[in-house]
C-alpha cells in the first residue's frame, strides 16, 4: 500500500502517522506539503494528520481545507481512494465539505488530553474491518475543538446509514450523540478525533489503533 501523509504548517502528528503507516505497511509514506497541488502517482491511501494547522486561525482546519493540496485530496477521495482525517485532520475534512457537520469548541471549554474508551459502531467499513461491531477499545484524545455538531437530520442519517464509526462511551467533549468518528456516504473517508496512530505498539500503552491500519492494508491489497 502506497500512502501519503499531508503536511500543513502546524501539523504535529504527521510523523506519528508516518511511523504507524510504515510499521504496518512496510513502506514509508510520501509526505506531501500543503502547497503541492498534486499527489504522487499510485497513492492508495491518504492520511490528514492531527496538529494545529495554520495555528487554528479563523476556525480549526479552515485554512488547511482551502490549501492547494486539498483539491487533490478531494479528487482522490472522489475516485474512491481511502482518506482518514485524525483530530485536526477530521476538522480539515469537515471544513473541506468532505464530511458533514462541524467540530466546535469542547463543551466545557477545556483541552481534553487522555485515553478514552470508544465503541466500534460499524465494523463493516474499510477502516474498521478488523474490529468487532460493538467492541470497546481505547484511543487517546488530545483536542480543544472536538465537539461534533450537525443538524438533527444529518445526525439521523449518519446513524441510519451506519456512518457513525466510533462513539465515546462517556461524554468527552459535548459531541452530539457522543460521536467520535464518522464516515462519508461512499464509506471511503473517515474522520475521527481520537488518535489510532498513538496506540500501535505495546510501548505506547496499547495497540488498539494498529488494527485500523492493518484492516485498511488488507482491504487495499485485496
Amino acid at each position: 500500500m502506497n500512502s501519503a501523509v499531508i503536511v500543513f504548517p502546524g501539523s504535529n502528528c504527521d510523523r506519528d502517522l508516518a511511523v504507524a503507516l510504515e510499521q504496518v505497511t512496510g513502506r514509508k509514506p510520501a509526505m506531501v506539503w500543503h502547497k503541492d497541488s498534486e499527489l504522487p502517482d499510485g497513492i492508495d491511501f491518504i492520511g490528514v494528520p492531527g496538529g494545529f494547522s495554520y495555528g487554528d486561525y479563523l476556525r480549526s482546519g479552515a485554512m488547511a481545507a482551502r490549501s492547494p493540496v486539498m483539491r487533490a485530496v478531494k479528487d482522490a477521495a472522489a475516485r474512491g481512494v481511502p482518506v482518514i482525517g485524525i483530530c485536526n485532520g477530521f476538522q480539515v475534512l469537515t471544513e473541506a465539505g468532505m464530511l458533514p457537520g462541524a467540530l466546535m469548541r469542547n463543551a466545557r471549554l477545556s483541552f481534553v488530553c487522555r485515553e478514552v474508551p470508544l465503541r466500534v459502531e460499524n465494523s463493516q467499513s474499510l477502516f474498521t474491518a478488523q474490529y468487532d461491531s460493538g467492541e470497546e477499545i481505547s484511543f487517546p484524545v488530545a483536542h480543544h475543538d472536538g465537539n461534533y455538531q450537525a443538524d438533527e437530520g444529518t445526525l439521523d442519517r449518519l446513524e441510519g446509514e451506519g456512518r457513525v464509526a466510533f462513539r465515546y462511551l462517556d461524554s468527552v467533549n459535548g459531541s452530539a450523540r457522543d460521536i467520535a468518528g464518522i464516515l462519508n456516504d461512499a464509506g471511503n473517508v473517515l474522520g475521527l478525533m481520537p488518535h489510532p496512530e498513538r496506540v500501535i505498539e505495546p510501548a505506547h500503552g496499547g495497540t488498539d489503533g494498529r488494527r485500523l491500519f492493518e484492516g485498511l492494508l488488507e482491504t487495499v491489497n485485496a
Partner: protein
Amino acid sequence: MKARVFVTLKNGVLDPQGKAIHHALEGLGFGGVNDVRAGKLIELDLAEGTSDAQIEDMCRKLLANTVIENFRIERMEPAQG
C-alpha cells in the same frame, strides 16, 4: 472601501464561549444578563468596486462555516469630502 463581516453562531448552536463569558459576568456581580453569544468581527479593506456578491462569496467560501455560522456584511462607505 472597507467592509465589516460579522460572523455569529446560528441560533440553536451551543456556544460554550458565550456561556463562559456569561458565567464570568455573573461572577463579577453583573445581574440581569439573560444570555451571551460570542462571534467574530472581520474587517476587510477592499478594492473600490468590490460587489456585495463578491463579499458574500468570500463569506461562504472561507470567512464563515455556514454549517454552524451566520454572517452579516456591513459596508463602511468612505467619508464624503
